[in-house]
């Protein structure tokens, strides 16, 4: 058996005068507070955005769903290398020498044929490092933020698939 000593909270002694002063102070300070909050009853505009009815437009450089414009991609793998969580999967083969020469929008020659460009959005943490290293600026963050889905498999975006390429008209910033 041992004795444990707990320290008692120091509190000033309560006299009758102090008790009445406490009551007076409580009423007075609460009234001041009520005065402050009472001003909010009228004449304040509503700040709450009621989401499904009112949709907020995100700022233009907001980092949301990724989109890769596969036609301008030169398969340089810089995005995949810079990704901290390794969620970008790229496969490319060398373009045959007799094939017609193609270029991206900004004039960079494409020397590799892109066979697979998949981003696992479920792994992605939207840090934006992949988009800043992209030399042709084909990989961009869009402002689209409503893309919840039921399965993990559907979060893997294959940017060569026609249904995902069809987003381009809808979400890509010019």
């Amino acid at each position, binding site marked *: 058996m041992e004795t444990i000593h707990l320290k008692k909270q120091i509190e000033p002694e309560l006299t009758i005068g102090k008790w009445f002063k406490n009551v007076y102070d409580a009423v007075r300070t609460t009234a001041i507070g009520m005065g402050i909050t009472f001003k909010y009853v009228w004449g304040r505009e509503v700040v709450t955005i009621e989401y499904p009815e009112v949709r907020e437009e995100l700022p233009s450089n907001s980092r949301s769903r990724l989109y890769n414009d596969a036609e301008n991609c030169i398969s340089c793998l810089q995005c995949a290398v810079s990704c901290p969580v390794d969620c970008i999967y790229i496969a490319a083969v060398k373009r045959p020498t007799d094939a017609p020469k193609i270029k991206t929008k900004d004039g960079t020659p494409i020397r590799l044929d892109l066979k697979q460009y998949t981003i696992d959005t479920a792994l992605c943490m939207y840090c*934006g490092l992949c988009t800043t290293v992209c030399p042709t600026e084909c990989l961009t963050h869009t402002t689209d933020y409503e893309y919840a889905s039921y399965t993990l498999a559907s979060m893997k975006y294959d940017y060569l698939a026609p249904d995902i390429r069809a987003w381009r008209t809808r979400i890509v910033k010019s």
Partner: protein
Amino acid sequence: MSTHHEPEDKIMLGDQEILKSDLLTLNMGPQHPATHGVLRVEIKTDSEIVVDAIPHLGYLHRCFEKHAENLDYRGIIPFVDRMDYLAAMSMEWGYALTMEKMLGTEVPKRAEYIRVLVAELQRIASHLVYFGTYGIDMGAFTTFLYCFQDREEILRLFEELSGARMLYNYIWIGGVWNDINDDQLTRVKNFVDRFEPELLKYHSLVGQNKIFIERTAHVGVLSKEQCLDFGATGPILRGSGVEWDLRKNRPYGMYEKIDFDVVVGKGEKGTVGDCWDRYYVRIFEMFESIKIIRQVLDGIEEGPVMGKVPKIIKVPAGEIYMRTECPRGELGYHLISDGGKTPYRLKVKSSCFTHVSMLPIIAPGQMVADLVASIGSIDIVLGEVDR
């Protein structure tokens, strides 16, 4: 401090014996609203009096330090954000400073000013979260709504600046990612002008309220010596009356040129170092932040925002310890490099961890409701505690 009590132990509160029955073990958390995240506190109580409180950590452990050893130096920044998610800008700044000192990079003047600006705005946003949630802990719900309304304005600005609302990845090694434009600077100015009188109003709504004072004054007292023994920093240390602020005492960035005061708790409503003093320090730090922001807005220069940094960062072999003043206290990075592309070791000294470890000395002898007040007033973010 003994953590194991036998049923026949004699427990004295002051000079009175209090043990009337067996000790009751209570679990507070991990899903308790008053623990601000996933902190579990194992409390031993005798009726309402807390005899012992043991914090249990690890619910938000993400292995940051080990993970950082496998990431390149740029790729660490997004993970640094996730430590103290309420003050991500300050976390990034600390890391960027560590790297710049190691690499010897010059940071452009404009980038330095922007860093101070965003860090101080972040400090305001972080203290507003503290203020709002502390109000809820003490039973005042209104401030929570007011604070989040003002915080929203800061987050909106950060979203336009960096692209994200909480995890910015904005301050990079060598500068900042994006330039701030004049329109945004005007908005900061308007916000600061509008916010200053509002904050005084909130202070008289909550801080001067007698009920709030009764709940916080004389509660959770941490003496100067206890704080220094445990290595507490930030508002906790200043609340206990120690004038120590890294921005003033060991200036980094632009702080040398900026004039501001260090707010210290004086025991105005109770004892020095009680919950009310810590509240007071945080509120008046926001006013100091406003002062700093005004000076930044006056002094900001034109120019580039990104210094010269090699494309593939290789840090020369060696080690460095760099610390910065974050809203919750000192944040230190200890980086050891062996000359490769990834750090050999990156140790983070977080202030919240120290502050959580002070719970067992605050708690004994308190009521359970006062323990809520004490946990709220040390303002922990579990992301930084566990890392």
